[in-house]
């Protein structure tokens, strides 16, 4: 035991004396969570729009007032002729232009169904879509207002209610994703690098010719990172609770348990990477290319898995991060207990055992 503690102590010295790994360990999680939380967002705010009003009557004025009164849009320009439409888009001043046709009010009152054209800048398709939906919603609500005394026959009113994230905050979606990416990166990349460093510097040779057992070397490498990753997970959860007001509906103990499980999965993966790479650089490349990209793209962190082509959907099943994100969202947002996520937990556990078994088999007790 004393032998093992000595090894762990040595690992802590390595980590604490290397500024680069300290930065990756503690700087990156904070920067990433703040970046994703503040900068990357699907919500729209203060989008500049222009209006080309052919009618200039009471109805169009009311609609324009409603739109510019909302916090989503700000009226940037009133356009007076056709040619200006293209030029304001080209200058990039506005993201959308609303065109009201002639005799808008008159047509409305005579039930001729007046038309308003919404032109959006679709160089950014998601934003264009969102802008259209928001404007449409504002016009619909105005219609409801003016029709409220008129009995309408045969009408269906959809009543949307968004549960688990009623304000549709994108940070709710990013926090589980970022937490997954960071734990994966820190745990897998840092362990694989720290094991291959021993190979590269030749110290592995000395460790091999010693009474140390492989299991002692590996667990001595892994334990400091389990400890540091748990601290990281706690920092991320605290940041998201206090800065982004992210709720944790479910049990914190369950959340902690699942996080430790995922950390161990990632560490096992890191050990596996270190057994197949000879240099720190290879280990880093494999970790970055082989882990980061799939974790970001195929885990459902940013792109929904359901809308991927079938082959990618199948591949996504072997990404541990996918299952962890499902678990995180379920615990943090839905507040469910283990009965609802035992399947995902079991899959992660299975993957971990598989990685541990494979890397024990691949761990070399000699030089190749």
């Amino acid at each position, binding site marked *: 035991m004393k032998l093992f503690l*000595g090894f762990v102590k*040595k690992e802590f*010295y390595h980590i604490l004396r290397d500024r680069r790994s300290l930065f990756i360990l503690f700087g990156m999680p904070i920067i990433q969570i703040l970046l994703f939380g503040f900068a990357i967002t699907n919500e729209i705010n203060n989008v500049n729009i222009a209006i080309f009003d052919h009618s200039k009557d009471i109805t169009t004025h009311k609609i324009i007032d409603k739109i510019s009164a909302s916090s989503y849009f700000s009226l940037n320009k009133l356009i007076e002729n056709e040619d200006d439409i293209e030029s304001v888009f080209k200058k990039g001043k506005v993201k959308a232009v609303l065109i009201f046709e002639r005799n808008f009010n008159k047509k409305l009152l005579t039930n001729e169904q007046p038309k308003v054209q919404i032109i959006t800048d679709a160089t950014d398709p998601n934003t264009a879509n969102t802008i259209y939906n928001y404007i449409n919603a504002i016009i619909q609500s105005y219609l409801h207002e003016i029709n409220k005394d008129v009995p309408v026959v045969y009408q269906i009113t959809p009543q949307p209610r968004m549960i688990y994230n009623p304000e549709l905050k994108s940070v709710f979606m990013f926090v589980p994703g970022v937490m997954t990416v960071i734990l994966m990166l820190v745990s897998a990349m840092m362990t694989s690098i720290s094991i291959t460093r021993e190979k590269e*510097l030749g*110290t592995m*040779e*000395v*460790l091999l010719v010693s009474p140390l057992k492989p299991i002692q070397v590996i667990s001595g490498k892994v334990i400091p990172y389990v400890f540091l990753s748990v601290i990281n997970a706690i920092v991320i959860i605290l940041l998201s609770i206090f800065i982004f007001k992210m709720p944790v509906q479910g049990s914190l103990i369950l959340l902690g348990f699942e996080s430790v499980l995922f950390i161990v999965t990632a560490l096992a993966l890191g050990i596996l990477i270190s057994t197949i790479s000879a240099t720190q650089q290879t280990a880093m490349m494999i970790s970055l290319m082989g882990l980061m990209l799939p974790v970001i793209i195929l885990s459902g962190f940013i792109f929904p898995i359901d809308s991927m082509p079938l082959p990618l959907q199948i591949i996504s099943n072997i990404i541990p991060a996918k299952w962890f994100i499902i678990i995180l969202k379920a615990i943090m947002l839905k507040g469910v207990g283990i009965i609802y996520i035992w399947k995902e937990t079991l899959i992660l556990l299975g993957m971990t055992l598989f990685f541990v078994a494979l890397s024990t088999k691949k761990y070399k*007790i000699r*030089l190749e």
Partner: protein
Amino acid sequence: MSISVNKINKSYKNVQALKDISFDVKPGELFGIIGPDGAGKTTLFRVLTTLLIPDSGNATVSNFDIITDFKSIRNSVGYMPGKFSLYQDLTVEENLNFFANIFKTSIQENYDLIKDIYVQIEPFKNRRAGKLSGGMKQKLALCCALIHKPTVLFLDEPTTGVDPVSRKEFWNMLKRLQLTGLTILVSTPYMDEAALCDRIAFIQNGSILEIDTPNAILNHFSKKIYNISADNMYQLIESLKAYEHTYSAYPFGECIHYSDKRTDLKINELYEFLKLKGLDHIIIDQTKPSIEDTFMALAN
């Protein structure tokens, strides 16, 4: 026998690194493996320290088989690889403590074994190993390899890249360690160090050329060696190579070491020959053959 090697062969993809290597090292012996870079010295050390499995042949270290009983060997030998293999970001003391710890001992327990060496680096015990000079690094590495009181010590090129003064000190330390009964297997590309071993094995291209005591090896050398120098060294060696009676001619320090095919060389004749070639300030002296001369003769 402390180390017993029997017909070891080891190949990498397309190089045969060790060919039928056999030798024995007696308990308490200081045994040198002498050979140029790429001769197979490091591979041999890795086979004996159980880091590599030979393709054929067998060997024992302290009577433990290197393949079936590798764990016992790893518990009882000290190994200092050719490349400086300590933790550069740990201090001198931390390194030593770490290695003491993984061998389940402590600095205090075996202090007398390393005392002579450790006192020299003790003033720097809080300095990081990466910031030590070459000679200091070697001393620290030696301390780390000795801290668990090994029965056999493997030193792979311990003095490569170390200044002459530190090299001399290092060999003095080995001699003192030998007095404690420790068996030492050391490899080196420096011929002058060979003379300090009890016995040496010349190794080249994976084969052992000769095993004997340094003195016996010198006596093997039957030819007389002459030190030759002249004003134009390049032209001198070219001329000697063209001379019909030349057995060997190679640079040695500031001179050329020359040996003749005939048993009785006429110095005047050689002098005239070189004079004819346009050389001046020619000096020809007979000298004692060194280990290097023997090696050059064997390697020919």
